[in-house]
């Protein structure tokens, strides 16, 4: 049974992505008691799935390593993984949260040796790689996962694989009788950091993400560019595994659109500009990138990043929202159809691979928040006084890049600290 010791002076952080992790660490390092609840088996969220950051083109693993070390060293921080908040009752300074913890079937004796993964054979779509690759039924979600503990997929329970994993484990960490449990505990303030998800590209009917293999999303492209990813860092066409040399990026795929997301997702322009660097890095002058855009929104100090990409002769820009994608049946090449705004030329351009720069959508649907909270038209949390001691951090409050999400999370942590300080003042 999981025990959580918490009081009205504890801060509950919901979501352990870069925003939640930051808020939790900032608060815990001021001496506050913090409980971090994360749905995935590890912390770090979608940042762990990025190859590089813009604008410095440095690796997210670097910052993650620092944060994970801070988390390991801090006695004030309790991390619950594979856990979801199902209910929050009460008011600022006195909340009671209910948390459902799913069984991991691996206890904390796990040394991360990987013998269980070697012993099992069934394979499943790897959610960490957005289904581009496969993983075993006993797995470590990714190399740097924190906590460094394997997970057993409930799908192998009752099969030979489960027994094999249990027998293989020398540390006695595999516990196939683990049950789902619900714990409830107190909290004085809540930092809500449930983050974002990529917009479902299947909904953008004219782009044929569901019909054409060589149409992928920007988050998938990010996995593809990563040397630790499913293709070993090779940019290839899913249809035939050939190297993709002529790549199109479609901006605002699902953003700024009445039929999809109303808001500008803000990061997709920079993400695409960054990804043209991946193409350049992988293929040199052989790799050509073409960006189809309505307008490039390289916010504030990123303008010079945009200008650098503009100067690259291997990257071209076409000012046009692509109307539809069709497929050349002979070679499975996607064909982009539209009219460009600078000159009104009609085009039907064939590419090897199309990357849809899909937008950011809040992870939690408007209707399924376990607590009363003010949400705007786009589904993001408003900074409203009615929210009491619940403060949004990161992408649950707006479409943000990592830098801004972290800044905002620090702000949310401070607000939460003020609430528990008031509680401390009255309780003495």
């Amino acid at each position, binding site marked *: 049974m999981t025990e959580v010791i918490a009081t009205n002076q504890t801060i509950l952080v919901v979501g352990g992505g870069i925003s939640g992790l930051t808020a939790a660490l900032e608060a815990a390092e001021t001496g506050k008691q913090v409980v971090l609840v994360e749905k995935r088996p590890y912390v770090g969220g979608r940042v762990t799935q990025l190859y590089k950051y813009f604008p410095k083109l440095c690796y997210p693993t670097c910052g993650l390593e620092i944060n994970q070390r801070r988390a390991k060293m801090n006695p004030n921080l309790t991390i619950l993984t594979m856990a979801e908040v199902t209910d929050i009752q009460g008011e600022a300074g006195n909340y009671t949260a209910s948390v459902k913890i799913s069984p991991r079937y691996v206890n904390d004796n796990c040394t991360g040796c990987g013998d269980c993964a070697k012993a099992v054979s069934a394979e499943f779509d790897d959610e960490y790689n957005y289904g581009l690759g496969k993983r075993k039924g006993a797995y470590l979600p990714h190399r740097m996962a924190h906590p460094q503990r394997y997970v057993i997929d409930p799908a192998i329970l009752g099969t030979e694989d489960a027994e094999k994993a249990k027998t293989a484990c020398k540390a006695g960490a595999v516990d196939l009788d683990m049950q789902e449990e619900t714990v409830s505990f107190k909290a004085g303030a809540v930092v809500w950091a449930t983050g974002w998800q990529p917009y479902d590209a299947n909904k953008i009917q*004219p782009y044929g993400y569901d019909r054409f293999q060589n149409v992928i999303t920007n988050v998938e492209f990010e996995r593809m560019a990563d040397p630790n990813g499913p293709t070993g860092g090779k940019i290839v066409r899913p249809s035939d595994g050939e190297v993709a040399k002529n790549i199109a990026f479609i901006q*605002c795929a699902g953003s*700024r*659109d*009445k*039929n*999809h997301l109303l808001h500008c997702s803000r990061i997709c322009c920079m993400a695409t500009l960054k990804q043209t660097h991946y193409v350049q890095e992988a293929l040199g002058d052989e790799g050509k990138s073409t960006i189809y855009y*309505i307008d490039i929104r390289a916010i504030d100090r990123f303008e010079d990043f945009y200008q650098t990409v503009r100067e690259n002769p291997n990257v071209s820009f076409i000012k*046009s*929202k*692509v*109307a*539809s994608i069709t497929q050349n049946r002979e070679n499975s090449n996607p064909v982009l*159809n*539209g*009219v*460009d*705004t600078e000159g*009104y030329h*009609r085009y039907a351009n064939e590419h090897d691979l199309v990357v849809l720069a899909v937008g950011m959508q809040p992870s939690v649907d408007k209707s399924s928040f376990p607590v009363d909270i003010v949400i705007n038209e786009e589904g993001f949390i408003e900074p409203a006084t009615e929210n009491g001691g619940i403060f949004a951090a990161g992408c649950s409050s707006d479409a943000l890049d990592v830098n801004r999400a972290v800044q905002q999370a620090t702000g949310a942590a401070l607000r939460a600290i003020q609430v528990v300080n008031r509680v401390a003042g009255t309780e003495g």
Partner: protein
Amino acid sequence: MSDLNTAMTERYRNSFLMEVEANVEEGEWVKMCMQCGVCAGSCPLGNAWEHTPQKLFMMIRAGKREAVLSSDAMWMCTSCYNCIARCPRGLPITHIMHGLAHYAKRLGLVPKNQPTQQFSQIFWDNLMKKGRVNELKLGLSMYFKDGFGQGIKNAMANKQLGQNMMKAKRMNAMEFFGGHGIKDTSGLQKMIKKAQEIEDAKYQGNS
């Protein structure tokens, strides 16, 4: 050029966009266009006409009054609604196109030999006579719109079709003499006349 055209030109001398907003059905949406080009790319007939919706909206904002109103583009719209379905800003593009066509017709600026507008006029005149469309006469009017010789040629070319339609009782040769209609033709004509007056007053008020 009609008097109405002169009056409108005078009144909106500096802003064709304002003229469109005030007088064209759904015209107030034109300023919402962000020139992404999805309508132009989605139009199945887009390569068959000179001005796509995207281009027309930009021309309106650039004050190209003459070019917009005498364009045949809005007459080529087949109302497939692809543009409306895909427009990220939710502009009722098809309706704006029809609105522009209607306004151009009002001002007498439609290209004379534009076949869609010729058909529309013939259809309207046909309908107004009896309150029902007389398909035989409508077909004949279309055949003979470019003169007697061309009419005979057109009729001969479609002879088989006509005969088949008569055999299947889809067309009646007796319709040529009078033809069927509604009970109160003059009542309908009065209604339409009143509607015309209301619309004329609106345009006069705007001019």
